[in-house]
């Protein structure tokens, strides 16, 4: 039988009661079997909705489309110029996962990096990765078929990078793109892991010796580089370092 207090249980479960009433009601629930069962029911529905309900993730193209559309938006007259110049970075603490999170990292990087900090290939690679996510230009050829991407790149570059099918290992191929990094025309082969985008850059380095896999972290991105058979590789992503390392070993050793 429903208890007189049953009507307040949703408020308790939803955290909408003040401290005093919360304490009183919790004490009651501990002694009342009907209320305890009802609370459990509320909790199990919540758990089910949080863990089992399909969570639709924004497709990567959508972020790119919005980014591109924003660039064409006319800017309204500033109402309060420069008042919010100190952006509240704290709000990024719980930045959404997935690509949206990646893009926040991107925007953050752009803010922080202007003017570009730290020279070198790392910055060039990260810059290219960032641009590929921001602009509507992740891929020139969008396909998960390695037999389409490889000839497409080979036809346009002096390098024929290996394009592997790694979907079974959790890294589906997204497509390929022409890029230009630090003076090199480069192939960019794009993979994904969950919602993380991985750019795998490759360019010709004729005559240079092979170099083993090296990992580093820069500006919130993880990078892995190596050189084999006169081709320099850089993989960059906001993916966790060990996952990106696994990816690199798959490409390198496969």
């Amino acid at each position: 039988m429903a208890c007189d207090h049953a009507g307040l249980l949703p408020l308790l479960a939803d955290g909408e009661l003040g401290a005093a009433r919360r304490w009183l009601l919790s004490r009651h629930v501990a002694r009342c079997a009907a209320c305890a069962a009802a609370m459990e029911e509320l909790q199990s529905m919540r758990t089910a909705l949080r863990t089992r309900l399909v969570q639709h993730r924004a497709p990567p193209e959508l972020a790119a489309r919005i980014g591109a559309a924003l660039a064409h938006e006319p800017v309204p007259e500033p109402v309060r110029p420069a008042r919010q110049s100190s952006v509240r970075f704290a709000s990024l603490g719980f930045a959404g996962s997935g690509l949206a999170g990646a893009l926040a990292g991107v925007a953050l990087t752009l803010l922080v990096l202007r003017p570009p900090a730290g020279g070198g290939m790392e910055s060039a690679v990260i810059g290219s990765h960032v641009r590929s996510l921001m602009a509507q230009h992740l891929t020139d050829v969008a396909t998960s078929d390695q037999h389409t991407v490889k000839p497409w790149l080979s036809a346009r570059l002096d390098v024929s990078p290996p394009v592997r099918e790694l979907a079974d290992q959790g890294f589906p191929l997204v497509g390929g793109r022409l890029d230009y990094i630090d003076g090199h025309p480069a192939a960019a082969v794009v993979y994904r892991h969950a919602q993380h985008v991985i750019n795998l850059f490759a360019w010709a380095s004729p005559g240079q010796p092979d170099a083993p896999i090296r990992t580093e972290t820069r500006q919130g991105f993880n990078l892995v580089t190596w050189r084999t058979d006169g081709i320099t590789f850089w993989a960059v992503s906001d993916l966790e370092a060990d996952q990106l390392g696994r990816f690199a070993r798959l490409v390198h050793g496969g």
Partner: protein
Amino acid sequence: MPVHQDDRRRRFELLALPHLDAAYNLARWLAGNTADAEDVVQEAYLRAYRYFDAFHDGNIRVWLLTIVRNCFVTWAKENRSSRLSFVAETPVAEAAGVEEILWGTAPRDPEALLLDRIDSETLSALMQRLPADYREILLLREVEDLSYKEIATVTGAAIGTVMSRLSRARDALRKLWMQQAAKETADGV
């Protein structure tokens, strides 16, 4: 001038893009398909950007979800979408078969209600059968973890309405689930 525009855009992206998944999830559950959800979210983000100067403090996620919700309503009206089956405060659901479920007198049996045993597909299907405003409020409360006040902001409803609607939405989902469980038992699953 262009510098100002770039700064403004970056600031917007910095604050708004982390919530793209939440915005999309709401739009997708409301609109029911990918293409319409994408259109709604894109429109919402452009609108948010235009009015970004009007956003002062507070929770940008709540602000964005409010705009997504408004964009969905506009979109659904323009397209005369049947997805806009908000039941308002009339307790009669338009969705077929939901009506008697909402007001049926299923015995309340907590034992039978182990929702934590439900599989993802079944749960999503049950949610789809709920009227849009029930689906919406369950998402906002249980998935997005918004407070009653925040839900009131997003949906434009009074707090009292939020509470009663949430209660009815939970009842409706519970009854659908019990019906489903009973059916599975009868089928010998």
